[in-house]
């Protein structure tokens, strides 16, 4: 048995993953344990969990693989400083010690934690992403496209995966980065870099792509092979702490929007424009990957692969017959990719390919909690709960509550790996009700959001409700709702600056999950993916005729998705959720002691 532990940390979300003889056993992000959103520190808790799940002693590990090569990253750091024309002593003083004390100390951190000498290998950042996308995919061979902010020198790569190998064919290097270009607009529109990108994507349908020509004229040039170059005169990330600079601000007519202030038509149009440019670049890169590999299948990873609008467009383009996207597409997935790359490419373990099914296991790779553990936790809080052992009875009881307009916190089985809640740590609601979106936003998430929630739908019914070509088990594709389910509304509202007026206009028979352009970030459910969640949606369908539920992540704003029963109960009690389901225990808010929502989470979690 070859046991390999992959680690990613010190940049974005840190994580660990364990792979046994090429099979993915466990993977988890550190933030879920430390309760610090996007925690990038050494993933001690994640490593502990992975060894626990595999029930392995440290000396049973054959190797530990770090997801990128610190020497190349250091090289980039040094050369960037040297080539910078501005005085950047402050940044130098901050960045170098931070770098030296983190990435170069990985071996000693591992030894300190596991108290044993284990071979530690490093791989390449984009190879980790590519491996995370290709090896779990159901494809024998595939083109692989990885796009992110930066990893070592590379920001984009095109590779070819076949059998046990991934060969890098082309790379685009820093500072020319689609991820950083998108982040620059995220920053300029007043959202937090590295977490607010999905908000910018959600804002795009409200705007018009009026700035596209300006972006092409001044900021980015696309070549015939799909590669691109940024005009660094307009960006601040090389020589300052900011993504954009004065020239960028002049170009778009003013300073960046201040966070938490009103979103105007300008931000909507900027979002729409950069989204269009992103889609163009991704399409160009995918086209070139097709030319280079001749493959019918494409795998995607890297932070930009979480742009599900762009993914949906790529899917609809039919450029590739098959598409598979790593659900933990960001740096957390690098831990998994590193372990898989070593497994197949270094230890030469054959892939166990199933062309009908990926080997990501529904991305349910995190910890689960037995009913004993659940009850031990709930009893500590004096929680009042019913134990409903019969799965069918449980599903109908929850479905009935949702039908009656209740908002339900739902925790079952193993936690998701990746940023999306897929029905194991989710907040659920009735998509048909006009008040669901507002209620979930204001009373549970504590935000005034312009983004609709995502729908989970039984896979067998997906084509009746959505225009979907492909399966979407990981909520990574955006598609449109079927025409017969749409409702017309006055598009003039789109010229209005007040987004919330538009958000609350019903746009379909399932308004809570329908965006202003009739799009939806869809998740398809099968019994194999998540039987408990499948049973619940099936029960809801038999009660209402609607095979769709609203699915949003189980957390409050700024909080990582809940992991344990303790996290779930605390989150439930902090919000105005009506019902909490943790495994076979069902709790009604009105029955709980001290059932007043409290806002102490605002002190604990930094707003995203």
């Amino acid at each position, binding site marked *: 048995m070859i046991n390999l532990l992959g680690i990613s940390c010190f940049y974005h979300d840190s994580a660990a993953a364990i792979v046994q003889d090429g099979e993915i056993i466990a993977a988890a992000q550190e933030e*879920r*344990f430390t309760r610090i959103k996007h925690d990038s520190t050494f993933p*001690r*808790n994640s490593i*502990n*969990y992975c*060894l*626990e799940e595999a*029930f*392995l*002693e*440290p000396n049973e590990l054959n190797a530990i693989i770090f997801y990128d090569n610190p020497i190349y990253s250091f090289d980039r750091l040094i050369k960037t400083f040297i080539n910078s024309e501005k005085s950047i002593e402050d940044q130098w003083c901050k960045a170098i010690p931070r770098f030296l004390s983190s990435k170069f100390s990985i071996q000693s951190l591992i030894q300190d*934690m*596991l*108290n*044993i000498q284990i071979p530690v290998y490093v791989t390449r950042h984009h190879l980790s992403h590519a491996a995370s996308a290709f090896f779990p995919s159901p494809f024998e061979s595939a083109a692989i496209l990885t796009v992110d902010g930066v990893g070592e020198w590379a920001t984009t790569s095109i590779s070819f995966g076949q059998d046990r190998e991934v060969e890098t064919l082309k790379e685009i290097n820093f500072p020319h980065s689609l991820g950083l270009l998108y982040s620059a607009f995220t920053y300029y529109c007043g959202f937090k870099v590295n977490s607010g990108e999905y908000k910018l994507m959600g804002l795009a349908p409200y705007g018009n792509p009026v700035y596209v020509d300006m972006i092409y004229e001044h900021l980015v040039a696309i070549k015939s092979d799909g590669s691109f170059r940024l005009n660094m005169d307009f960006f601040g990330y090389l020589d300052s702490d900011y993504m954009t600079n004065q020239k960028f601000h002049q170009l778009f007519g003013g300073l960046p929007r201040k966070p938490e202030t009103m979103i105007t038509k300008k931000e909507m149009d900027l979002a729409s424009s950069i989204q269009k440019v992103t889609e163009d670049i991704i399409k160009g890169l995918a086209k070139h990957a097709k030319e280079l590999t001749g493959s019918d299948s494409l795998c995607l990873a890297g932070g930009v692969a979480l742009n599900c609008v762009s993914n949906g467009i790529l899917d609809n383009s039919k450029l590739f017959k098959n598409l598979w996207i790593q659900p933990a597409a960001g740096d957390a997935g690098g831990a998994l990719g590193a372990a898989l790359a070593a497994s197949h490419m270094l230890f030469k373990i054959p892939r166990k390919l199933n062309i009908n099914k990926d080997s990501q296991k529904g991305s349910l790779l995190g*910890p689960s*909690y*037995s009913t*004993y*553990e659940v*009850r*031990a*936790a709930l*009893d*500590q809080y004096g929680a009042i709960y019913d134990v409903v052992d019969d799965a069918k009875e449980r599903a109908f009881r929850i479905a009935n509550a949702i039908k009656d307009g209740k908002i339900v916190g739902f925790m079952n089985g193993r936690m998701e790996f990746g940023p999306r809640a897929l029905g194991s740590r989710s907040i659920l609601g009735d998509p048909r009700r006009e008040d669901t979106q507002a209620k979930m936003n204001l009373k549970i998430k504590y935000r005034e959001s312009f983004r609709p929630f995502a729908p989970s739908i039984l896979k067998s019914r997906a084509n009746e409700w959505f225009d979907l070509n492909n399966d979407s088990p990981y909520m990574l594709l955006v598609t449109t709702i079927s025409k017969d389910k749409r409702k017309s509304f006055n598009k003039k509202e789109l010229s209005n600056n007040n987004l919330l007026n538009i958000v609350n206009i019903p746009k379909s028979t399932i308004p809570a999950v329908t965006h202003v352009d009739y799009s939806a970030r869809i998740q398809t459910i099968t019994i194999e993916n998540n039987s408990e969640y499948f049973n619940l949606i099936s029960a809801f369908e038999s009660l209402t005729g609607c095979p769709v539920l609203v699915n949003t992540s189980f957390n409050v704003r700024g909080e990582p998705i809940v*992991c*344990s029963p*303790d996290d779930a109960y605390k989150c439930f009690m902090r919000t105005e959720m009506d019902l909490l389901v943790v495994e076979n225990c069902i709790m009604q808010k009105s029955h709980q002691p001290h059932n007043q929502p409290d806002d102490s989470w605002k002190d604990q979690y930094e707003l995203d």
Partner: protein
Amino acid sequence: MARRLFQYDPLISYRFIPCLKARVDHESGGYLFKTNTLGFRSKHEFNKCKEPNQKRVLIFGDSFTAGDGVSDGKRYSDILENMLPNTEIFNFGMPGTGTDQHYLIWKNFAMDIEHDLVIIGLQVHNINRIIARYRKYLNKEGNTILLAKPYFELDSYGRIQLRNVPVPPEKLSIESLNSDQLEYIERTGRMIWLRSLIKKLGPSAKDFAQRLVRFQPLEAYNTRLNPAWLLMEAILQKWVSEIEKPVIICPIPLYQYIEQISSPNHYQERFRSIERIPKIFIHDPLQDFLQFPYNIRREFRFKVDQHFTPSGHKVLAESLLKSIKPLLTNNSTNL
């Protein structure tokens, strides 16, 4: 750590959550364990009946017996099981508990289980736990909390009387106790300020300071009339009176005795004195630890954590084997 290990128990105060599969991050590099459906750290389900020709030993104790710091398979009970043919060992060890709670575990979970021998792994520090009514713990946030525990008192006839059952489940803060109650928090030593200063200086400084002052950790053993010892004696006497099979009491030494920082004379004398009670066999493993040179003995505990390392467990198992073998043989002959 996301996984909770213990659940409330109204009689014992707490026990392991049943059917756990857990890994505890620890200076040893971490340790793995599983619990059975009854909530004990054992690979065995505690079936009442034995298989024919099978021998069975029940072991009770605190974290030294439960195996804090080491994975399943490396505890002295597991090592013994491997050394003894056709013998299964049921480990009822529960971290953070005292001999009073071990007796309650016996009464509530073990007394109906068929067996050939009982071992009470009595960490000598337990004498401080039996007089305590509250025990300090650090919660996930690193704050000190108190958990209530059951305890016994001696009545005017010298009989033990159970108190504080059902144990209140609430976690308490030190501030919530009155001055009388504060007396009953488990003692972890005097001169807290000095101990915390030395702790900050590291384990080597602590060892040096203890050697320098000829530290005596357990004064309760100093005289046979000490109330704590009288209570211990009464609990053991009552417990053993309920057991039909032989009982080995194994006073598990603190590291201060193993590393000859402190004198063991008082506690050894006290335990020798109860060997007069029928069915009790005192097995003192200290001599077996002391046969090793100091640098090896230092390896029997972790750098910071005082619990036994796998090598410490091995020495204890090999030591106990000498007392267990003849008793199991004689016992089966008697049967």
